[in-house]
């Protein structure tokens, strides 16, 4: 579905130093890495917001740069890290923006656009506040509305930048479960950037570890999320064992400094 080959990009210094990745149909790839490792930049290149300095991205076998922007928007749904809505917009109006690429330039939303928006809002359980203003929604509600907008164009690939940041534990699980269901039921492919290692281990079909713009490892969570790999990537001491309920890797932080202090506190 998605192929990226040797992607390079730099702002003032190099951000991505030759990243390659593949995402198959119906696959959920989690991109993990410390702050500043180039995760968001990678996503923006895949979506076509940034152009890579070198390297190539292709979607469904077609070179990204050869696809018109409107057509690309129909193939790829994107949820940014944050969208600030300063004007009064209802959730439904916001979700209908996801149908822009399908519409005529001046035209009004068709019956079909409304049906797809309804589908997207049912999937994300946001129908209840369709007529409320986006600016008045809670963090979890807004995050779901943003996902609804991204899937309203019925894309083949979903690109999500930290969709569970700012969510409580139950909403984090619900959000990723929804993304996984979309990959299974609608055979969507998804790329998700997150800092939640345990959720990634639980939901991802594959995991890509990124550090300083380079791929450290890529593969199934069990194979890739090892103590050695994670410690290299995050510069933190981590314990990896098996989650007793699911069998997925379970990551626990064991920072010796913190342990020493908490031992002192506990006396």
């Amino acid at each position, binding site marked *: 579905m998605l192929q990226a080959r040797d992607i390079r990009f730099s702002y003032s210094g190099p951000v991505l130093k030759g990243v390659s990745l593949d995402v198959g149909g119906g696959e959920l790839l989690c991109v993990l890495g410390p702050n500043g490792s180039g995760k968001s930049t990678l996503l*923006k290149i895949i*979506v*076509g*917001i940034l152009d890579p300095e070198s390297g190539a991205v292709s979607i469904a076998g077609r070179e990204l740069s050869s696809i018109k*922007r*409107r*057509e*690309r*928007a*129909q193939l*790829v749904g*994107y949820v*940014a890290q944050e*969208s*600030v*809505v*300063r*004007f*009064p*917009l*209802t959730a*439904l*109006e*916001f979700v*209908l*923006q*996801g149908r*822009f*690429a399908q*519409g005529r*330039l*001046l*035209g*009004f939303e*068709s*019956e079909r656009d*409304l049906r797809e928006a*309804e589908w997207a*809002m*049912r999937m994300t359980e946001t*129908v*209840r506040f*369709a*007529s409320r203003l986006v600016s008045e929604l809670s963090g979890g509600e807004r995050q779901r509305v943003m996902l609804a*907008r991204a899937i309203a*164009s019925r894309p083949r690939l979903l690109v999500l930048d930290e969709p569970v940041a700012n969510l409580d534990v139950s909403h984090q699980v619900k959000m990723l479960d929804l993304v996984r269901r979309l990959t299974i039921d609608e055979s969507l492919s998804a790329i998700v950037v997150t800092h939640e290692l345990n959720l990634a281990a639980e939901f991802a079909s594959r995991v890509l570890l990124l550090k300083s713009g380079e791929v450290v490892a890529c593969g199934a969570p069990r194979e890739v999320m090892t103590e050695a790999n994670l410690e290299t990537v995050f510069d933190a001491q981590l314990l990896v064992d098996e989650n007793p309920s699911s069998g997925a890797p379970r990551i626990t932080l064991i920072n010796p400094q913190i342990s020493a202090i908490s031992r002192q506190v506990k006396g």
Partner: protein
Amino acid sequence: MERQKAKSKMQNAKGAAAASSPDSLRPPFPFHQSSSGSSRLTSKRLIVTLAALFALLILIAAVATAIGSEKVDVLSVLRIISSRMTGTVADVPAEQAIIIADIRLPRVLMAVVVGAALAVAGAAYQALLRNPLADPAILGVSSGAALGAIVATVFAESLPVSRPVAAFIGALATIAVVYALGQSRHRGGSERLILAGVIVNALLSSIVIFMVTTAAGSRQRSVLSWLIGDLGGETSLLPIVALLIATGIAAILLNARSLNLLMTGEEDALALGVEVGRVKLAVYLAASLITGAAVAVSGAIGFVGLIIPHAVRLAGGSDNRLVVPASALVGGAFLVLADTIARTAIAPRELHIGVITSMVGAPVFIYLLRRTS
């Protein structure tokens, strides 16, 4: 027969409802094309709203044309206008006909055109900059246009540039400088942009005053009277200015749906399929063109671009497919009202129209500032 059909239909409907009983727990989705009562903009609501606003504009313009030191009733006004349009002679005193058709009506039409231009320019800048506080006057664009127009007036012999063109160039150069100064590497550059506008505005205003002070006596008077703002001073330019402004508004209207998406962020808009670079260029050019054209004939009238789009959004939502044309109509009507007050409040003397718009606009701006921060 019909009853049976109806019965069976009702049963079918019941059956369908029963079959989807798990769905009955779901909340309804009452926003389809046919349903009413939603706040979403439909083509029907757009047409009805614009028709109503257009009728209101015509009414206000007709009444405003009738008001003045020479008393003429609205009916005579309409008779004079229709006689002028058909080329016949109306049975009203010739003096009245001249006052209405050659003095008041052009001034009222100028107010409509300038008000529409400033309000639409404001709506466009607000969407482009994602800041409800943007406005051609606050961003310094009006001052830039004014400076361009004054340069064209003062150096009329050596510069073969007409006043509207010079004002357009001034407006465009100003928005480019303000935009460049307002860009920041970090996020939240929207406030920075307003600050850049305020500073550029202050600089341009001082240059304008400098030029007016040092200009030769006869030119000084002409520049000053224009700078104070007079909708009745340049009525010979009405057709060309109206054409420029109509073109600019149409260009912005063509990009209205793209502007809707730009309001939620440039990267979001790119990802959703908007050709952001092209849309921004087209709308900046169009907004600067109509600001320049308006300022060239009316001087810098403040706050219209700020309060009109905001009022429209409060009443009808943020969809630019409504905000842009409705702002044009409401802005036109507002400026006609303001100008009527300006020329009648302390008659026989005239108030500067900017005094009226600022008296309304400044409190609204403060209210907006408090609400958005």
